[in-house]
């Protein structure tokens, strides 16, 4: 098997732009102005830039899993949002293999992942169980 406990995942990167936040507001039918209107964000004291939808942040985690394990199926994904991602942020998803279980010809890999902006800001902390297809 090519995967080992403790292995680091290959980093996955993306830049958040307003056009995609506008699209996600439509996809989710979510009128929350913090994603669309920078003045609302300022009025609420939440910063100087529009805030990305948490759902999109979780999609980046999923894409990083898919990038590292192309022949796989996610069977569990727990996500804790710890900080906001804002317009213009260059995000990186990193992680490592926490555990590997082989049972009944099935391999399930547990990964710890996190979505960062730079080295300091951690915005999402996730744990995923991934079924590796034979």
């Amino acid at each position, binding site marked *: 098997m090519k995967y080992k406990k403790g292995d680091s995942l290959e980093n996955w990167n993306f830049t958040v732009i307003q056009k995609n936040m506008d699209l996600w507001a439509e996809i989710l039918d979510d009128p929350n102005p913090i994603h669309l209107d920078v003045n*609302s964000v300022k009025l609420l004291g939440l910063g100087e830039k529009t805030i990305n939808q948490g759902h999109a942040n979780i999609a980046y985690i999923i894409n990083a899993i898919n990038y590292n394990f192309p022949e796989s199926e*996610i069977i569990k*994904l727990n996500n804790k949002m710890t900080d906001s991602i804002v317009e213009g942020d260059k995000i990186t998803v990193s992680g490592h293999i926490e555990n590997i279980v082989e049972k009944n010809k099935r391999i399930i890999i547990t990964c710890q992942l996190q979505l960062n902006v730079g080295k300091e800001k951690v915005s999402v902390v996730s744990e995923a169980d991934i079924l590796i297809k034979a």
Partner: protein
Amino acid sequence: MIDTANITEKWKYLTNNSKNLSLNDFFDLDFPGGNFYIDKEANFLVNQSTGKKVDKEDLNNIILAHPIYFMIITLRGSGASIQDIFDLLNYDTKNGPMLGQCNMSFNYQLKVDYKYNVRGKINSLIEKKSQKLGKIKILDFSLSLYDDLSLKIGDVNYIWILPLGKKNEI
């Protein structure tokens, strides 16, 4: 069998009277329920907007939907939009509600050009003080996804953080 009409009426009643209700009145409240169809063009946009490379010329060969559709479907197909949920709680979205946690379990992968049904309930609504945000409410709800044969496809549990401004004195 779920009594959708009765649940919808209950949501209307609670929404109209939410100013006078206690937090416990929302405990165990069923969502009206509904369904959502995954359109292949929309799936393409979801992939593209989150940085996953998909060849548009390959659109007709794509069978599986992006797994983030678990979140999209459960919210869009629950019978209550995000705005409906905030209206139910008499919550002003100008205060900036935030997703706090989202835990998902998947029994099957999602397919494009396929319709899914959604059922769920509010688990709790509590009030707390946050050092960063001041007075907040925490909304905990769960939604499950089924295919047309009532086979459970997966579950999603959401925790939303609702900062309270002066307009929200529930």
